[in-house]
């Protein structure tokens, strides 16, 4: 069954670019939800049925790392996989994200091919 995706990024333009890349990559997915920071993302996760989260790291209010930490503490949503999409490539920050449960990371900018290669197996 097609998976529902949640995009978390503070830039609405960036969210549009990511969803366009998903379409171009030819991946099958269901609904796309959007959130502009970690706190909003948690709200969406509680209310909607989301199968995979693609999240930025640098965001106001609640950043990607805080989001992962908070999500891990909530039983109902802690098992939803989160994939980091960010310009941050520092090993430590990606490492920290992974230790908090992130299943992978994709560096911006990305091509549809790259999206397919990295996200394809998860979809």
């Amino acid at each position: 069954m097609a998976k529902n995706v949640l995009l978390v990024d503070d830039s609405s333009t960036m969210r549009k670019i990511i969803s366009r890349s998903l379409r171009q990559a030819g991946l099958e997915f269901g609904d796309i939800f959007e959130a502009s920071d970690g706190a909003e993302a948690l709200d969406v996760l509680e209310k909607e049925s989301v199968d995979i989260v693609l999240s930025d790291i640098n965001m106001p209010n609640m950043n990607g790392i805080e989001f992962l930490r908070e999500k891990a503490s909530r039983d109902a949503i802690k098992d939803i996989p989160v994939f980091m999409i960010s310009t941050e490539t520092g090993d430590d920050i990606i490492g920290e994200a992974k230790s908090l449960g992130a299943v992978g990371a994709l560096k911006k900018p990305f091509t549809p091919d790259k999206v397919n290669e990295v996200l394809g197996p998860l979809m």
Partner: protein
Amino acid sequence: MVIRNRAALPLNMQGIHSQAYQLEPFVLALKEDPERHELEEKVVQDCRYLISTLHAVAREHGLVYLLYMADSFEYVFNLVDTGKIILNLVHLGFVVELCHVLVANSKSIADFENDAQLEKVCKKLAFELLRTVPREDSREKDGQKGQGGLDVSGGNASFLSEITAMLDTVEQELVLWDYIALDLSRVDILAGLFGRLDSHFSLYGFPEAARICQCVEATLKRFTQGEHFYGEYPERVLIRTLDALRTGVDQLTVWEHNDIQDAEKHLQAIQGLMHKPIGELLVQAGLVAQESVDEALELQKQEILQDRPRRLGELLIDMGIVSEDELNHVLGKQLEIKNQLSFIETESDGKRLSALSVGIQEEDLQLQIPSTVATPLFSLTTQLWNHYSTDSQAPDALLQLKQLCEKLCKAQPDQIVQRLKQAAHDLAVLHGKRIHFVVRGADLDMDRMVLYHSFPLICELLANSIEHGIESEKERISQGKDITGQVALSFLNQANELWISVEDDGSGLLLDAIQDVARKHLDRKSIDGCLASGNGAADLIFYQGVTTASASGRGNGLLGARDSVEKIGGHIKVLSRQGKGTKITLQLPFYRGKMQPDVKNHS
């Protein structure tokens, strides 16, 4: 694509001319004797009428500078209407000047002449008029704090909606950046959009936002002129800038002293896109001392505080530290270095040729050399080559140069086709159509210049097919067609011509309706000429004024398409069957291996 109905402009401007001409004596009379209240009523009424006409005409024809002027007069008259200010002699003086400008320039406006100079005049008038309005007044009366900023409730709603619409357009473009970056004319449009944003922001008193937009405009312009972006992710900077502008606009009511958050940071990021700042370059070139640059930067900061943002280069010239020639030289040098190209000069028959010689890397050939450099180079080399009657007479250096040019001009159809596929997909999503898009013959060894030249046209044809040709899913089902529309782009080598066709299985052209529309817009001779041509009535879609979107399902984006193809000695063939589909073929007269001596004229 915005197509302005130029034909209507002279008539519209004539109307404005006579309105302004008639209004002026009344305004002068009222200025003489401000106590004549019956006159005041007439003047205000006529003024409002003139301004609203001006507004409508400016908007219809995309004459931005007239729009600013109309906007600012409208703003002032709205304040007068709501009793926030009282019409005074100074305002009347501005109205007289408005009439003067319109009477004196209506013809040049209609002819699109002196645009730049008129823009200056109109902007100045608009600026100075707005300056006469005490900004805080109305707000303090309402118990609101703050200086500057906008009274969003009143006359500025149009400013807000316009800015928001422009920012939305910018977003649409940026989402497709990887595609538009390939089409310099579209980047140019984006730059123009930022230019308009700049004028809007500065007109309404937001210097920082204006400066950021100005900076983006300049940066994009440099990109279209062949400079490269630094770093691998330029759109990120543009997206961040857009976000900042949006946040600023969203918070307009509290957007007072600090109109854009971290404006300086954004500015630096944008400037950083195009490698080194001009100050650094000048110091490096030994033309200017670091202290002078610092001094100019300091002055620049002060001027920003006084709402007079200026570029560093401009300031340095004004301060007498550097000459315009020196500045241009450094900028030109930078371009040269950046492109890693070295120039040689070859003497031939009294003609000098600046040409590329060495240093071109294989990867540089991959669509990175802009056609603005490659096309003239190709042309110059060909001219020179054609000078020798046999190949063996030509010097070795020229032969090498020719070979390099050929390499340079070899297309990378894969990438272009990939972009076109993306574009088709995006267009289909945008218009809610379901299509299957195929590309045939993309493996042809095509001439890059030809492809570049026709790229915008191919896009236009595709857009027409997807937007207007292919019916909605519902319509297709009711007509018994497959729910998915077929759109095909094919490249074909036909006897030393390159044929590019775009074909769809959509609704086809409604030729009768097209003829009807054409009769209203064209003279008999043109129509007869078309009907006698190979394409018949279908040819009419390439004419100005024949907007057939509603009648037949074609927009008028094809205006000028035929001219541009015929200018390079090609033809357009249109085949259309109502209800079955349309096929438009560009027959372009060159094909790789055959160098055309006058390629220069093609661009």
